[in-house]
């Protein structure tokens, strides 16, 4: 299983983390699931971070934005396949808060570390299990060239 994404789309979500630094960015990945559980990202949708009380270390996507994206992607024959956010001056690995607040089983949670305003590492984590047994597993990101 892997998360497949074109380089231009990967650059788009990494750039978003640089633009919002020192605050966390966040957004939605839409695309297709394949039969083996892998995913292909077809679109990266930047969202606003509603955690204006603590944007440097928290993110939250407005449910209203999620509703709109879910409705539009469903009508377009796409699924929400994952989410992304940045960790300003913190490693590109999931935190206990990330796991506590993750509820989209089967989806990818992509995290980019942004150090001094520059995007460094981007990793993907697959959320598995049910609410009581949920956990992240490392997920390979397969990057293809092209726009």
């Amino acid at each position, binding site marked *: 299983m892997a998360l497949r994404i074109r380089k231009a789309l990967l650059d788009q979500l990494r750039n978003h983390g640089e633009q919002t630094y020192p605050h966390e960015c966040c957004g939605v990945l839409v695309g297709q699931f394949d039969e083996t559980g892998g995913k292909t990202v077809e679109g990266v949708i930047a969202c606003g971070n509603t955690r204006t009380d603590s944007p440097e270390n928290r993110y939250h996507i407005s449910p209203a934005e999620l509703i709109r994206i879910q409705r539009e992607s469903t009508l377009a024959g796409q*699924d929400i396949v994952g*989410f992304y956010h940045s960790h300003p001056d913190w490693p590109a690995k999931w935190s206990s808060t990330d796991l506590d607040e993750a509820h989209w089983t089967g989806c990818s949670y992509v995290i980019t570390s942004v150090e001094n305003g520059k995007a460094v590492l981007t990793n993907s984590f697959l959320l598995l299990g049910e609410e009581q047994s949920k956990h992240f597993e490392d997920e390979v990101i397969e990057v293809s060239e092209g726009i």
Partner: protein
Amino acid sequence: MPIKVLIPTPLRPYAGKQPIVEVSAHTVGEALNNLVVQHPDLRKHLFAKDGKLRSFVNVYLNDEDIRYLAKDATPAKETDTITVVPSVAGGV
């Protein structure tokens, strides 16, 4: 004409893998109840043991959060769409 309920990606395995389920109802609460009657495996993912919606589950009637309408008693009609979305948040 039934009401459409949009099912989010993580809950589709418990709803016959369908992105949209149609239910007959007069309120949002009735629609959600009929949804879990049709697809019993969905119940524990939508509702806590006390029968209330789980805290991280958002339910919208068209573009409105039902928490700011009449909650479960919010009237729903045939042309309405109910959307269920778990919250998305985190941080370091």
